[in-house]
């Protein structure tokens, strides 16, 4: 494994130790008929504002490489080992694209990345010049796979699929409880992401019999949510829907509890701060909050073992780790099927892939124009400090607590 970055040596943490383990396993044997290693460009923002999420993706990717190598590499290629070319995109699209060029020159047979959509858009465009297969891990905007790039594949749902799935999920949860939610207020950050998502939500709410009382935008950063919460309190909605980023998500959620807003529930789509760390750091606030987001199938026993492994290494399990892991597994599966790391055979293998060696709440993959149409996000709820899948029923680990208990 080599680091393609100008930032010098990385930090020495447990995460690094895990990565170093992957590196050791990725090293080719000296002597013998060892087939050439298959190089994978692993591009994420591991410094800068997106460092946490980018590092989580990288952790998943390096774990997958370690696992594949430990299991004998790509068997159809004589046990060829995988070698990670690690790149730090620093949260900048031009650097992500430049890393692709450098890694292509270094012999990368595939790419994965880049956590954030702008980075993914730039990097996939750059990779298309070389027609090198690119397995997107996290990067949700539809455009990543709708620009006609033949080399780009996304195992996970895009934004349209996620928003499209969120309202039926809310409808099902609400109806199952006797439709206690009839009105909602949508609080959103005032950028493109929040404004567009909020408008789509408000329009879709009418279709499931919930009236959107008001859309309340806020700037990022917002230091205090008391005014917004007092407005919500005056409007007396049943539901508060939140579309913003991590910091504001935490502050708004806390203020709702402090001001004792009486709600049937809160429901966010891709909630910026909705994760296990939030559940542990802010248990009073987080309990019974709901979010429509990416997660694994809690019922699948492999997921529990994976989570334990991540947590035992003193890391947090987030969807980024899982995405990073399975994006690499998808590429490796294609190389197994193709029996080669050649560009055309790999792309063909991905197009016809029925990859199912995962514990996501999906069936086998079915790629249409690079997007896995069989993927879906799920409705999640924090219950007793843990993340539970509450919809769809087929993957639900717990029934939703809805309406949430008073007081």
């Amino acid at each position: 494994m080599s680091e393609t970055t100008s930032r010098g040596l990385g930090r020495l943490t447990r995460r690094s130790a895990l990565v170093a383990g992957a590196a050791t396993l990725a090293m080719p044997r000296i002597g013998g008929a060892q087939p050439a290693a298959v190089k994978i460009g692993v591009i994420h923002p591991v410094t800068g504002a997106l460092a946490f999420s980018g590092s989580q993706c990288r952790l998943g990717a390096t774990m997958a490489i370690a696992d594949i190598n430990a299991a004998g590499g790509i068997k159809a290629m004589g046990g060829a080992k995988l070698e990670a070319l690690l790149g730090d995109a620093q949260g900048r699209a031009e650097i992500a694209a430049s890393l692709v060029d450098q890694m292509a020159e270094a012999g990368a047979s595939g790419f994965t990345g880049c956590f954030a959509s702008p980075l993914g858009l730039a990097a996939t465009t750059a990779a298309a010049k070389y027609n090198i297969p690119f397995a997107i891990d996290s990067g949700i905007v539809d455009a990543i796979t709708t620009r006609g790039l033949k080399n780009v594949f996304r195992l996970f749902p895009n934004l349209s699929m996620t928003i499209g799935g969120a309202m039926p999920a809310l409808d099902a949860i609400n109806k199952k409880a006797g439709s206690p939610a009839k009105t909602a207020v949508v609080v959103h950050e005032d950028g493109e992401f929040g404004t567009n998502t909020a408008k789509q939500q408000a329009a879709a709410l009418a279709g499931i019999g919930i009236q959107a009382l008001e859309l309340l935008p806020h700037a990022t950063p917002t230091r205090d949510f008391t005014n917004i919460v007092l407005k919500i309190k005056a409007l007396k909605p049943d539901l508060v829907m939140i579309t913003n980023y991590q910091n504001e998500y935490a502050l708004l959620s806390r203020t709702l509890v402090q001001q004792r807003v009486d709600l049937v529930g809160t429901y966010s789509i891709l909630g910026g701060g909705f994760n296990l760390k939030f559940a542990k750091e802010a248990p009073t606030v987080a309990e019974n909050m709901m979010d429509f987001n990416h997660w694994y199938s809690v019922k699948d026993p492999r997921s529990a073992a994976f989570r334990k492994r991540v947590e035992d290494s003193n890391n947090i399990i987030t969807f980024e780790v899982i995405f990073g892991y399975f994006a690499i597994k998808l590429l490796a599966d294609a190389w197994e099927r193709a029996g080669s790391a050649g560009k055309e055979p790999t792309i063909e293998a991905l197009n016809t892939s029925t990859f199912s060696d995962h514990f996501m709440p999906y069936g086998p993959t079915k790629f249409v124009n690079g997007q896995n149409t069989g993927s879906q996000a799920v409705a999640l709820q924090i219950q007793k400090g843990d993340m539970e899948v509450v919809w769809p029923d087929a993957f639900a680990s717990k029934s939703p607590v809805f309406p949430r208990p008073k007081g």
Partner: protein
Amino acid sequence: MNAEILIAALVNGVLTGGVYALVALGLTLIYGVLHIVNFAHGSLLMVGMFAAYMMATRLGIDPYLGLPLVAAFMGGLGWLLYRFVIGPVSRGEDRAILLATLGLAVVLDNLALVLFTGDTRQLETNLTFTMAEVGPLLLSVPRLISFSVSLALAGLLWAFMALTDTGRAIRAVAKEPEGAKLMGIRPERIFALAYAIGIACLGAAACLLLPSFYVSPYVGNVFVLVAFTIVVLGGMGSFPGAMVGGLLIGVTESIGGLYLGESLGPIGISAVFIAVLLLRPTGLFGAVR
């Protein structure tokens, strides 16, 4: 607009303004004595917040109880920074000190990223959800504590500056360093002390903010712009200016957010800022030249 919400917004603005004032107090002290604009102010606030966070999570010390410790730690850090970074650089051209404080901010931010990653952390204390019921209003007790302690600290700082020999020495150096030197005062020591006190104020502000806010390597950016606004609005180097400016900005932000929406609310701050500077270019309490 519902009168209850208006009153709540007004009170909330005052409470928030108190903490803004404490953040600005350190900045105005450093400018008033050293005549440098400390661009590392936000990053040093972040360091203070992480110190308070680590103390709470690792040692179990409540941020309010740990305030003296964090303030002392930050004061010591400020002293060291002055002796080894700010002081040596400030003997050169003015732009060198600007670059030095900017560079310090970059180093601190990235150090925090390496140590803590870019993730946001928050703290639930015993008081996080304790609310004081005042008529129809629910006032957050952590915010009431923050406001009260900020006022008390500002008062103590004022008394220290006005009534003690060291305070008088600081004021003398701020006004006329050469004259102060002739009176036996060592300006370099006073500069280091003023910088340390300014940074200690940030340590106190960090402990007061943490229970009702979050901490991340970039949290300083959320407060630093508003602190600069307060310092200029109140009059650069003026203590009363920082206090009144903080309260004014807190109330303006809150009422602006209420009437213009939280997206457009910050326009209110800019409007008040421009209006005050048009009428009084040296700020509310700045010396008229």
